[in-house]
Structures are given as C-alpha cells and as structure tokens.
C-alpha cells in the first residue's frame, strides 16, 4: 500500500493517459480532452504530497521515491501543466487532429516522472525512451509545416543514435562490474579504479545523456529543433524533458561518487566550460527567438554542469535552485511565443521582427517577456538572479576559478542578445508585422499561466527564502 501511495503520481499520470485515449476514441472534443488532461495532472501534482509522506522509499529495485524524485516530479508536472494549457491555446485554431497532442504529452510526462525516480540503468533507459518517443510525435505535430517535420525527424534520428551510445555504455559498465543498479555500480566503480573499459562506458553514457541536455559537442540538433517545432512541444522539450534528464544525471553522480575520477571529472569541467561559452557565442547573431532560446538553453545547461562538476557542498542545492528558476523562466518565455503564434496557422511567430514594438500593442505580454529575458540574463529582481548567484557561489566555494571566470564571461556575452530581444520589444514599428495575440489572450488559460509565471519569477527574485527552504527540504530527504 505504501508503495502504491509513493507511486501514485506516476500511476495517476498513466491513468489519465488511458482515460484520455479512451475519450478520444469515444468522441473527439478538444476542450474536453484538455480539461481531462489538466485535471489528471493536477491530481498527480496533489498526489506528490502523498508520495512525500512515504519518502524515502525504494519501491522496487528499479524505482525509488525520495526528495530528489519528488522535486523533479513536481517540476515536470508543473511544466507539463503549462504545456497542456499553452497547447490548448495553440491548437485551438489548428487544422487536423488536436486531441492526440495531450495523449503524447501525458506519456512523455509519465516517462519523465519515472526517469527522475530511476535507481537502475534498466529503468533509466526504459523511462528515457518513454520520455523521448512521444516527443518525436509532438515535435512533428504540425506536420504540414516543413520546419516541424524536419525538427521531428532530426530529433528522432539523433536521439536514436544517442540511445545507442547510452546502451553501449551501459553494456560496457555491466560487462566490467556486473551491476546495473546505481548503488552497486557506484560501489564496483570505486573498487575497480580507472579501468579503460569503464571509462569508455561512462564516456558513452555521458554522450547519450549529454545529447538530451544538449551539452556542447552534442548540441547541434537543438537550435533547429527548437526553431522548427510547434511552440508548446518546444516548451516541453526545453523544460520538462531537460529537468528529467538532469535530475537523473544528478542522481547518478550522487549515488556513484567514484564516477568522478580525475579524468572523468576534468572531462566534465571542460564540457561545462565549452558549453557555457559556445552557447552564448552562437546565440549572439540569431534572428529567431526560438532559435535564440535554444542556444541560451545550451548556455544555461553549461552553468548547471558547473554545479554537477563540483558535486560537493552546496552543489545539489545549487542545481535544484537553478533548475527551478530555469524552468519557470523558460516556460514563461516560450509561453509568450506560443500565445503570439496561437491564433494563426503556418509557422510560429518567432522571428525577432514579429516582436518589434510589441510593447505598444500588448504591454502586459511584453512585460512578461521582458521579465523572462531579464531572468535568463540573471538580473536582480528576478528568479534568474538567485540561480546565477548560487552558481557563482558554488564555484567560488570550491575555488574553481576557471569555471567562475567562464560563468562571468558567458553572462556578459549573454547580456548582449537578451538585451537585443528586450529592446526590440520596445522599439517603435515602421512597417510593422501584424502577428499578434488575440485581444482576449489575458482572459484565456494560457494568458493566466504566463502572467502567473512572471509574477512567480519576480516574487522568487525578491523573496527567494521559500524556494530555498523547499529545495533544501527535498535535498535532505
């Protein structure tokens, strides 16, 4: 019974997926499907509280429920809720079938929740695929658009290659140690020392996971996929999917500290360094907001890697705080793009010139996007500043001056393109492009979501104590 309660969020999400599937088979109705999805996700979110009362608990050899998994689960559910609401706004005027989007979304969310609870390589692989497969469909959901189809196919092919690397790595590790669970693997690695096959195995797993996180040499898909895919799907990819993979990587590094041997450690540090600088540099000249956000997310995962590299002291707390601020900010930024792209068919309104002078037509929507850009840049009064503060703090605490230097340099470069977006919003508009949100956007669910996100980002930026307390509570379990 306790195990069932501990797993209740996952079970509820899966049940919702089945109910939604049956409902679609019975009757196609967009609003009904969306409502069912949102209700199910909210129930699952509430059920995290039930799971919290049982934690920490190892449910099977495959799954564990502890503070970290609940933390990840809550973030994923919040992100999924936002994606469902935004998706509703986005698909309202779309041609073709609309209801299956929610089905795919729910399946991916279930994969994400299972992934953050994994404590075994088998469940890791299984749930990672459950997370990725529906994403192929979601990314190519508006398949009449060339870009979306290309994004879906590109993500599928590269993701399959990454999965192959991941599997190969796991096989090597298993061949040398005979363990597949994280704890046993950690113990065996600690006693084995720096064996060449083990290093190769760990390197290959890092490639597989690094692909999902778009760490630098494996980032090439990110901008294309972000640009081409429909905005709500890109939102999910940028938020929930990345949170899940990062949390499982964090758990892997936590439960097998021996993975951090000198060679592997410096490899991670180099990756973090390169990722921060490359992401920011490549974002400089982008003309497409979604593409720019893609590069910026690469840079942000570079910052996050700093916390993983250090992996001591406040590292887990830092990674968690940064994830919270990153998810809220990304959801908000993509939310605005979604709302502006919503009422029209065709490609999304994501070119920068679509946003020229937005302030003079949609002041509140612009305020939301401005807050999100400031938060991504890490300016005080926004949640992003708290995240940036934590990253610098953890770097200084561990005296990793090169990484701190890269964070500072990366942030300085990053300012340039965030400011570019921001000032575009306020510029007067000669020969303006009329791509606009519907006039009643604020009353719709999607509008409420982005406004709430902006309020939350500012609130957490000014008074972050509750967020810090929550994260520390989760990390302590």
């Amino acid at each position, binding site marked *: 019974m306790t195990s069932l309660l501990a797993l209740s969020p996952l079970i509820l999400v899966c049940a919702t997926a089945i109910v939604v599937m049956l409902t679609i088979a019975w009757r196609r109705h967009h609003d009904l499907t969306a409502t069912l999805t949102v209700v199910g996700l909210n129930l699952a979110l509430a059920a995290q509280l039930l799971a919290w009362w049982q934690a920490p608990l190892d449910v099977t050899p495959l799954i564990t429920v502890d503070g970290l998994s609940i933390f990840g689960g809550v973030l994923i559910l919040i992100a999924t809720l936002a994606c469902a609401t935004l998706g509703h706004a986005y698909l309202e005027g779309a041609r073709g079938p609309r209801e299956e989007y929610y089905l795919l979304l729910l399946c991916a969310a279930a994969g994400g929740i299972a992934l953050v609870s994994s404590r075994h390589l088998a469940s890791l692989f299984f749930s990672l695929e459950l997370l990725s497969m529906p994403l192929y469909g979601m990314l190519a959901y508006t398949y009449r658009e060339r870009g979306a189809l290309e994004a879906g196919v590109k993500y599928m092919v590269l993701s399959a290659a990454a999965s192959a690397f991941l599997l190969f790595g796991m096989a090597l590790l298993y061949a040398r140690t005979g363990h597949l669970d994280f704890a046993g693997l950690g113990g065996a690695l600690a006693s084995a020392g720096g064996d060449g096959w083990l290093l190769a195995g760990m390197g290959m797993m890092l490639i597989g996971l690094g692909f999902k996180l778009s760490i630098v040499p494996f980032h090439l898909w990110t901008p294309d996929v972000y640009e081409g895919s429909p905005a709500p799907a890109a939102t999910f990819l940028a938020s929930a999917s990345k949170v899940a993979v990062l949390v499982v990587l964090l758990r892997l590094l936590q439960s097998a500290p021996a993975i951090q041997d000198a060679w592997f450690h410096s490899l991670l540090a180099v990756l973090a360094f390169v990722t921060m600088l490359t992401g920011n540099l490549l974002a400089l000249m982008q003309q497409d907001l979604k593409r720019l956000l893609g590069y910026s997310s690469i840079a942000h995962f570079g910052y996050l890697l700093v916390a993983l590299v250090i992996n001591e002291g406040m590292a887990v707390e830092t990674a968690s705080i940064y994830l919270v601020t990153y998810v809220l900010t990304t959801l908000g930024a993509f939310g605005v793009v979604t709302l502006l792209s919503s009422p029209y068919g065709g490609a999304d309104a994501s070119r920068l010139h679509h946003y020229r002078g937005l302030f003079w037509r949609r002041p509140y929507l612009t305020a939301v996007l401005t807050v999100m850009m400031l938060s991504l840049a890490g300016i005080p009064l926004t949640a992003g500043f708290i995240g940036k503060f934590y990253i*610098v703090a953890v770097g200084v605490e561990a005296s990793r001056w090169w990484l701190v230097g890269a964070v500072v340099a990366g*942030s300085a470069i990053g300012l*340039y393109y965030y400011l570019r977006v921001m000032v575009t919003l306020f510029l007067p508009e000669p020969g303006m492009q009329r791509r606009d949100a519907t006039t009643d956007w604020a009353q719709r669910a999607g509008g409420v979501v982005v406004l709430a996100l902006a309020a939350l980002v500012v609130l957490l930026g000014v008074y972050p104590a509750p967020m810090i307390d929550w994260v520390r509570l989760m990390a302590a379990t």
Partner: protein
Amino acid sequence: MILVCLILIPFIGGLLCWQAERFGEQPPRWIALGTMLLELALVLGVWWHGDYGLNAAQGAADWALEWRAAWIPRFGIEVHLALDGLSLIMIALTGLLGVLAVVCSWHEISRRIGFFHLNLLWILGGVVGVFLAIDLFLFFFFWEMMLVPMYFLIALWGHSGSTGNTRIQAATKFFIYTQASGLLMLVAILGLVFAHYAATGEYSFSYEALRHTAQNELSPQMAWWLMLGFFIAFAVKMPVVPLHGWLPDAHAQAPTAGSVDLAGILLKTAAYGMLRFALPLFPEASQAFAPVAMGLGILGIFYGAILACGQHDLKRLVAYSSISHMGFVLIGIYSGTELALQGVVVLMVAHAFSASGLFIISGQLYERLHTRDMRLMGGLWGRIKGLPGIALCFVAASMGIPGTANFVGEFLVLFGTFGTWPWVVVVASSGFVLAAIYSLFIMQRVYFGPAKEDTPLGGLDGREIVMMLGLLVLVLWVGLYPGPLLDTSEAAMQNVERIMTLEETPAMPEETP
C-alpha cells in the same frame, strides 16, 4: 523605517507615473516631480534633525539611522540599511538631481511619458538603495538593478547618432560593461563570504562581520585579488581610464535627464562604493594598490582633458571632462588623508552640480538648435537671452575658479594629498591648464565668434531660469561656505582615514583648514 520609505517612494512613484499616463501627458510629470520633492524633503528633514558630527569609538561604525530585517536566512542575508553623513549627502544629492532630471525633461520627452518617468524614478530608487545598503548582497542587488532602467532610458529616449542604431549600441555597451564588472564584484563578495564561513562557520553578508574577516582572516594575496574585484567594478562605473569606453557614447546618446542622472549620481555610486566598501574592507591591499590608483587617476585627468579638447559634440566634451574630474576623485580617495577625503565629498557634489548644469545647458541648446555639434554653433551670445551668462558661470565652475564648489573640492584633494604624494599633486595640478583650455573652448565655440544666423532664438522660460539659477546658487553656496557639508561628512571620512592608516601613522602631521 524612514530609510525604507526613502527607497520605496521612488519605486511607488514610478509605478504611479506609469499608470497615470492614461489620464494624459501632464499627470505623470507632476507625480514624478511630487515624488522627488517628497524624497528631497524627507532627506532634508533627516539632515535637519540628525547630528552627524559625532565620532564613534575606534573602529566602530556609527550609523545615524539603521534598519534591518531578515531576507534570505539561508545565507544570513539581511535587508540592512544604514545612514551616516556620507550616505546622507549622497541621497540628498540624488533627491535634488532627481527633481532636476524631472524638470529638465518637461518638454524634451514627448513620447511614452509614463514609462519614461517609471524608468527615471526607478534609477533614482536603485541609487538610493545603493547609498543605504550595508548588507553586501543587498548592495549588489541595487547596484545591478539600477542598470536596467538606465538601459531603457538610453535605448528608448536617447538621441540617435549619425548612424541608425547608435543609441541602442551605446546602451548595450553601458549595460555590458557595468554588468560584467559587477559580476566580478559578486565573485569578490562571495570570496569574502566563504572566507568568513571558513573562519566562523556561518554565512553572513553583513558589512561589519565581513570587515572583521577581511582584516583578520585573509591572506594578503587573497585580499589583493578580492580588492581588485571590487576596484574593477567601481572603476568601470567611475570611470577610470582604461575602463571608460562606455561613458562618452552613453552620455552622447542619452536624453538630458539620463545624462544628468549618469554624471550626477551614477558615477558617484562608484566613488561611494570605494569609500564605503573597497577601502574599509581591504585597507592594506588598498594601500599597496594606491600607487597604481594614483597613476590611473593622473592618466584619467590628462586623458579626459586632452580628449575633451578635441570634441565637436558638446555632450561628449562634457563627458570627457567628467573623466578628468573623476581622476581627481580617485587620487583623493586613495591618498587616504581626512583632508583629501573631505575634498572628495565636496568635489563629488560640485561635479554633480556643474556637470548636470552643463548637460542641461546642452539639452537646452539642442531644443533650440537641434544639434549639439559645436561647429554649427557660434555667436550665440547675442541670440539667446540669459543662457550664455549662466553657461559662463557653469563653465567657470567646471574649470575650478575660486568661489565655486569645484575649487573647494579640488583644492582640498590636492592639499590633502600633498603631504604623502607631493609629485602626484604637482603633476595633477597641471591638469588645470587643460581644464581651462577645454572650458574656454566651450565658451569660444558656442557663444562667441561669428554668428551663423541673426534670428534670435527663444530665451529661457521661467522653468529653465528657476532650475539653472537654483543650481548656480548651490554651486556658489558650497564654494563660499562648504562648512555644513564638511561637518556632515566629517565623522564618516575620519572613519575611513582611521581604517586606512591603522598600521602606520601618517607621514606628515595633519593640518586642519
């Protein structure tokens, strides 16, 4: 509680201005003016009622007013505000220049008035926060926060330069320079905090605790690097010469109110930061660094003055002259004697008045001539009523003619520095010659010489006359009777001097003027 009010009033006033725009053009302006007058009145009230001549016991900080509340308990971060003579003078200056900034943009800004005043007031609120914050996290918070509205002010209401988008480029340059150097300061602050954590086992960003750690627990090498982190952040904002790249562009493109705020207050936050944080936290490292700082100061004096001589754009000229004046401030700060430090305070106030005056004048010329290029001016003495005479007074002030506040400040700085750094004073003094040259260039090129046209231009209206004469009275008052100002800042400056000379007695016995 009054300290919290001082910070919140501009922020709330800004929001009201933004929303008041829907009632028409005038309400935002009046609300902004009322807000800043209220702020100014509040500061003057505090000044009137408090006694700032007190000198506390050795090493203890003496705050006239203090307010603290927990903010982020995880890191021991507090909202800790405190006021002493130095911050009081700076806040009063902020209030005064805030009023001026609102008044001088009364006709200049005609688009998006509400949003403009929102940004203007938020800058001022952020600056007041910088002057009051004693918790280092809070200080950094306000330090970075005030950049955003300033960015918008330059980017949206600035003057476009010759090629398309320069105001946006100038604003971006300003933001990146200051933000990147600010992050270095954050790294230095955190380095200090973790040193404190290593020594005591608890996190704190409090000024007192960190000062204790910085002076007792740090290795000299570490102290040197952390001091450098603070110094670079302040040096960019000040600006000290190799890091000054943003200033001329930002000034040239900013609207008049932006220039007034930038020259009058934002540059002063840097000097304030050095006096409040960089020197007291790292006295030994700062003393070791003093020769470099003196060199940079001299470099700034000459570089700024020489480049000012070669400018055609009136605002750029004034901007470069600011760099030159800030060189004196830097020399005064690092000489570390009480006399020079008092001079720094007077010079900051004086420069705020004279530079704001000159920027407002160039704004008024721009309103009438639609150019700031001095090659297109000339012979204006007979064409504009009133303005040339006032301009002459401000140019004289900028030059440091006795009787003006600038003279008192520069004299005290040089006099106070002479005891320990005679050669620096000798070299720096010759900078006055260059100051005379560029100042006279302004008068010569703008007001004298052959007139381009004969049509008279509009004279000063009542608003402009009151604004300029008020500023002029202040310049002369501080120049002739700087007593109240010196008394107010005396205790704070004595504290800084005591910290700077803790290890060694001054080489020369102090003389008091």
